């Protein structure tokens, strides 16, 4: 998903870049006057069919900047980009689907500090809304630009809900639970046929970070990991109780037989799951793969005791930056700037791939034509309580450590919740300390 999004975002960015070029030819002529011709490369996680559109947009960019030829490499992922930078074979511009790596790239200089470029071109931080602004910076150094964001919410199958007598989507967790149980169907041997809401950890988009906003759960307290909180405990207890109701093994079998998240046999698109947590890109996928599906979107339900949080969600997004090994940083900056900062382009990209544009200007752009169902995610993006995961020096390691414990707790292998959470905190703190070891304070 993120891959598709990332690619779409990149495409959008390039389209924006291209249209941006067209719109302000004079200033661009001045720029390309200073910046010489070059062959640059950009790596993106997109694959076909989005890669085709992406390449078309790159072609537009090349037309607007004669002399700059861009080689597009699709199908990359974070591991490859990280490995390439370390191996010295990195591209001139790199796009990552995960903002987590900002904490690894910035302090080490793997991606260069974009501050000087931004100052020179008069691009200011404030064009980005708060969350994207934060997840593309680390300790004050901006080494990446946000480029299209993802927000998460609830998708629900209107047909299945209507059959069970529901007209509206759930707003609280207890409503979600009750509806999920009623919407679940089993076949004659007891196997799950239709699942009301699948609480299985790490299935499709069910990672802890996505559930956090509904309980107001946070990750850090200052410098230290702070997962041992009532908010997380409540969230995990709820998830476990629903899993136990379904039967852990039953869910494993259901998941093993369900389609792949990004295939046409996606469980929600084929009506096997009635309610589902997913990102805004799913709107475009449904339009392409299951156009007859009658569905609706809404913000994800919130905990019963936190109802004022309703309307918020989780946000993350792609980032783009310039690896320090690039030999054509000026040209790379042009490309990156187009991808990250042009309002019209972001709006067009959003229309094409249904991702959330990441500048306040693009959010208000008259060119923005969201598909029905997409507005929910724009609203979530604008909500003041929408949160993201904090950027740390250890990248995604803290989330993976947490997830490792979560899957053990939810399966019943580990029973002490608070003790386990405290242990995870200790581990993450130790990892953070390790990452800092030996550095002058």
């Amino acid at each position, binding site marked *: 998903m993120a891959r598709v999004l990332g690619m779409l975002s990149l495409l959008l960015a390039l389209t924006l870049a291209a249209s941006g070029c067209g719109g302000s030819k004079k200033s661009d002529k001045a720029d390309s006057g200073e910046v010489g011709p070059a062959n640059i490369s950009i790596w993106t996680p997109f694959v076909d069919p989005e890669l085709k559109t992406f390449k078309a947009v790159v072609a537009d960019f090349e037309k607007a900047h004669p002399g700059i030829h861009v080689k597009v490499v699709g199908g990359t992922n974070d591991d490859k980009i990280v490995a390439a930078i370390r191996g010295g074979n990195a591209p001139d511009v790199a796009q990552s689907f995960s903002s987590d790596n900002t904490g690894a790239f910035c302090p080490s200089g793997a991606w260069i500090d974009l501050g000087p470029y931004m100052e020179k071109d008069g691009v200011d931080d404030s064009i980005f809304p708060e969350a994207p602004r934060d997840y593309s910076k680390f300790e004050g150094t901006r080494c990446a630009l946000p480029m299209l964001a993802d927000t998460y919410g609830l998708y629900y199958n209107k047909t299945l809900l209507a059959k069970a007598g529901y007209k509206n989507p759930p707003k609280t967790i207890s409503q979600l639970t009750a509806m999920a149980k009623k919407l679940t169907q089993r076949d004659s041997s007891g196997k799950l046929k239709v699942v009301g809401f699948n609480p299985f950890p790490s299935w499709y988009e069910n990672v802890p970070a996505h559930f956090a906003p509904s309980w107001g759960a946070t990750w850090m307290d200052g410098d230290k990991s702070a997962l041992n909180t009532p908010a997380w405990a409540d969230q995990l207890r709820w998830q476990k109780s629903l899993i136990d109701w379904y039967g852990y093994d039953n869910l494993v079998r259901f998941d093993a037989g*369900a389609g792949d998240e990004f295939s046409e046999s996606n469980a929600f698109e084929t009506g096997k799951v009635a309610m589902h947590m997913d990102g805004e890109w799913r709107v475009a996928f449904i339009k392409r793969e299951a156009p007859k599906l009658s569905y609706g979107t809404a913000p994800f339900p919130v905990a019963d005791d936190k109802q004022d949080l309703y309307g918020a969600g989780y946000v*993350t997004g792609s980032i783009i930056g310039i690896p320090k090994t690039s030999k054509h940083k000026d040209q790379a900056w042009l490309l990156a700037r187009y991808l990250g900062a042009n309002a019209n382009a972001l709006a067009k990209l959003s229309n094409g791939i249904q991702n959330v544009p990441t500048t306040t200007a693009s959010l208000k752009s008259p060119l923005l034509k969201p598909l029905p169902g997409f507005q929910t995610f724009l609203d979530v993006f604008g909500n003041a309580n929408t949160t993201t995961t904090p950027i740390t020096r250890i990248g*995604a390691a803290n989330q993976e450590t947490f997830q490792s414990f979560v899957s053990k707790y939810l399966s019943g292998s580990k029973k002490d919740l608070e003790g386990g959470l405290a242990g995870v905190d200790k581990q993450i703190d*130790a990892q953070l300390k390790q990452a800092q070891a030996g550095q002058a304070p």
Partner: protein
Amino acid sequence: MSPWILGFSVFFGYPLVMSAYLSFTHYDLLSSPRWIGLANYRYLFTTDQTIWPAVKNTLWFIAIAVPLQVLFALGIAIMLSRARRGIGLFRTIFYLPALAPPVAATLGFVYLLNPATGPVNTILGKVGIQGPLWFDSPQWSKPSLTLLALWGVGNTMIIFLAAVLDVPSHLYESAQLDGAGAISRLRWVTLPTISPVILFAVVIGVIEGLQYFTQAYVAANVAGGSASYSAEAANALGYPEDSTLFYPVLLYQQGFRYFNMGYASAMAMLLLAVSFAVTFVIVRNSRRFVHYQAPGR
């Protein structure tokens, strides 16, 4: 000789020394190594929670899967040696799976053992047994990998077959004259005679167990891959619940996904020590079981 000495020092001697050096540093390839003394080791032995599952998994494999493989190969070899006709055909059949590239074999097994749609559980279902979750269950994932390993014992089996067929027949004849039955002959003639080969198989098996990577990596990624494709934390290594997180897999993850190369080097040093210790223990104890044939009369 000289190319080899060069290669040896470049690819063996130098890396060993470098590994030791790096284990005392914090190194992520983006900047130069930072000396941190024993911090890596302290972290490894006291704080890291993923090390001990990794060590346990690898030790489990060595203690359970390797002996099973040896026994299984031996059993088939002995059965084959008794067969009078069609040895060639059977030998080929048992050897074929060992030829399958590990990635291919693993993919095949993960598909076959899919808890919901795989043929194995489907057939078990027809007989009325609800099949386990195989690669998706923390209790069954290592046994599933063991089954995969047993499928591929062809190499070992052929070595055993040759050794069994090599046992001098006069030994059997004398045993028979002394009134030994088939099982006694097996225990007192066959096994002792081929004991050096058994030792060889065990040592090789242990060495491979200490390096076990490919099948665990592929199986975890494929079985866990039906899970989230989320941009954040899409790491399925060790799926499910660290049960397939073997030591080499963890080392790879630390060194080449997180790029904690200093820490990975510390892990490598530990692996080195354990490899030596285990091999030493086996060879030491082998003197009790292994009979080297006296030079011919």
